[in-house]
């Protein structure tokens, strides 16, 4: 029998809330974190709205020493440290003593690219023949694994400490990688999650691809419209989400609170074949990913009662809904409740999977299903598949049993995870 893996800690640094309380309130009330960015307007971006966590001086002081703050110019690193340290503390865990790492705990914390602003600084210095002026901070703030390295040092963890990268599937993949390591008996607990930078250098490429909305610059909160008939592209976001995964046995042994059981998860790729490409998913692969995740979790198609989709607000939303429907063999009123966090925070790219996984899991604790915003004009093609009652426009009280979460990324890569409400075994 597989080692059972549970979620015992959560942390989040999202555009609409830093910390679990703020994030939960924003999700429950449908409060958007999308704002207008003058910087993007000044640079001539088509899309001048984005989701960016509102970091204040007090956050910087609380999570970084004065020495760590010297020359710190890597937004993704800041978000990741906040979410990661919060998740560890939320799980009731502490940083280890000076001379002894915790050999049983590790980190998989993903990102797409880290410290783009810091890298820009370095490029300017190097081009001005001032390479020696980079100082010591350039490498650790711009290496992809800068985030796992930083968290590993702060917490003193001695198991695997690494960073994964699979575009917009990164966060969900990190959760699966951590789960697999615990199942393999190679670690007792893993801090997993992902982060993504803010700013023009991370978002510019997507603006250039013309896949971002350009008509909501004066109405930012309405701009991110997944599942809507008027969806016009994804709003770029940023932030970080983090989870502490632990074997059930170890969580129980230390009396940890348990948010949910992570029943299973699967990553795959469509191979950029059969309709899949660098930027589009192979539908067969998406359905296989969902189906094999259910098999890995050892549950039936009918047990899923809530889905948190990838649903970015592009034309691909309809295809995603169709893939869920085909994979589960369910449609109309028989389809699970489905929501997307992206209406509220935008598409946090590499951070999306982890931020949205945190949002998914909070529904167990709060006994809620979070509502969707900006889709009162549901796409008619979606309504041909799913009954409108299954796409809540308001948060409502509900006890979720099984929540499925999926993320899909450039490169035709997919990741799907299955959470279950945790109930202690009866003696």
């Amino acid at each position, binding site marked *: 029998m597989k080692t059972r893996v549970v979620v015992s800690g959560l942390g989040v640094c999202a555009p609409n809330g830093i910390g679990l309380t703020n994030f939960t309130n924003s999700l429950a009330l449908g409060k958007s974190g999308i704002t207008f960015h003058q910087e993007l307007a000044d640079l001539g971006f088509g899309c001048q709205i984005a989701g960016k966590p509102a970091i204040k001086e007090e956050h910087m002081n609380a999570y970084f020493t004065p020495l760590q703050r010297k020359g710190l110019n890597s937004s993704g690193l800041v978000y990741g440290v906040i979410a990661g340290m919060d998740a560890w503390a939320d799980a009731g865990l502490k940083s280890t003593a000076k001379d002894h790492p915790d050999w049983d705990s590790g980190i998989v914390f993903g990102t797409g690219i880290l410290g783009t602003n810091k890298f820009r600084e370095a490029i300017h210095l190097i081009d001005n023949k001032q390479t020696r002026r980079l100082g*010591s901070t350039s490498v650790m703030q711009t290496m992809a694994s800068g985030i796992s390295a930083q968290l590993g040092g702060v917490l003193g963890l001695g198991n695997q400490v690494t960073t994964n990268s699979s575009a917009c599937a990164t966060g969900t993949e990190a959760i699966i990688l951590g789960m697999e390591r615990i199942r393999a008996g190679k670690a007792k607990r893993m801090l997993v999650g992902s982060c993504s930078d803010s700013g023009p250098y991370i978002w510019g490429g997507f603006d250039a691809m013309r896949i971002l909305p350009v008509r909501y610059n004066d109405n930012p909160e309405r701009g991110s419209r997944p599942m809507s008939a008027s969806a016009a592209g994804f709003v770029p976001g940023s932030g970080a989400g983090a989870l502490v995964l632990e074997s059930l046995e170890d969580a129980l042994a230390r009396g940890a609170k348990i948010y949910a059981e992570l029943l299973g998860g699967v990553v795959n790729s469509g191979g950029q074949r059969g309709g899949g490409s660098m930027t589009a998913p192979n539908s067969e692969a998406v359905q296989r990913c969902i189906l094999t995740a259910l098999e890995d979790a050892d549950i039936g198609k009918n047990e899923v009662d809530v889905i948190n989709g990838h649903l970015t607000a592009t034309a691909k939303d309809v295809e995603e809904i169709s893939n869920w429907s085909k994979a589960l063999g369910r449609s109309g009123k028989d389809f699970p409740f489905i929501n997307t966090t992206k209406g509220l925070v935008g598409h946090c790219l590499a951070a999306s999977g982890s931020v949205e996984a945190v949002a998914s899991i909070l529904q167990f604790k709060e006994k809620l299903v979070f509502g969707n915003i900006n889709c009162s004009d549901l796409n008619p093609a979606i309504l041909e598949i799913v009954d409108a009652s299954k796409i809540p426009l308001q948060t409502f009280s509900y006890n979720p049993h099984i929540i499925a979460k999926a993320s899909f990324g450039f490169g035709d890569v997919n990741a799907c995870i299955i959470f279950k409400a945790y109930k202690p075994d009866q003696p």
Partner: protein
Amino acid sequence: MNNKTHYERLKKIIEDYLPEDVATSEIKENSNFITELNINSANLVDIVLDVEDAYGITFENEDMARMETVKDALRILTQKISDKE
């Protein structure tokens, strides 16, 4: 500026790079940056850059290699200043 002023100024620069568990009062002329003050070797590069900015001088690679204690740093920087004058 005399040697004492240079020392005080250097101490101020070093302070920023001390780990949290090393007190400012532990900086002595004979302190070894790495083994005694527990300063991360990567941060020595930053200390040198700050000293260079403060005095308008340049440390060569061989200067850095010889900079083990606070006293070493002080000797190198006073030499550079007098060379400049």
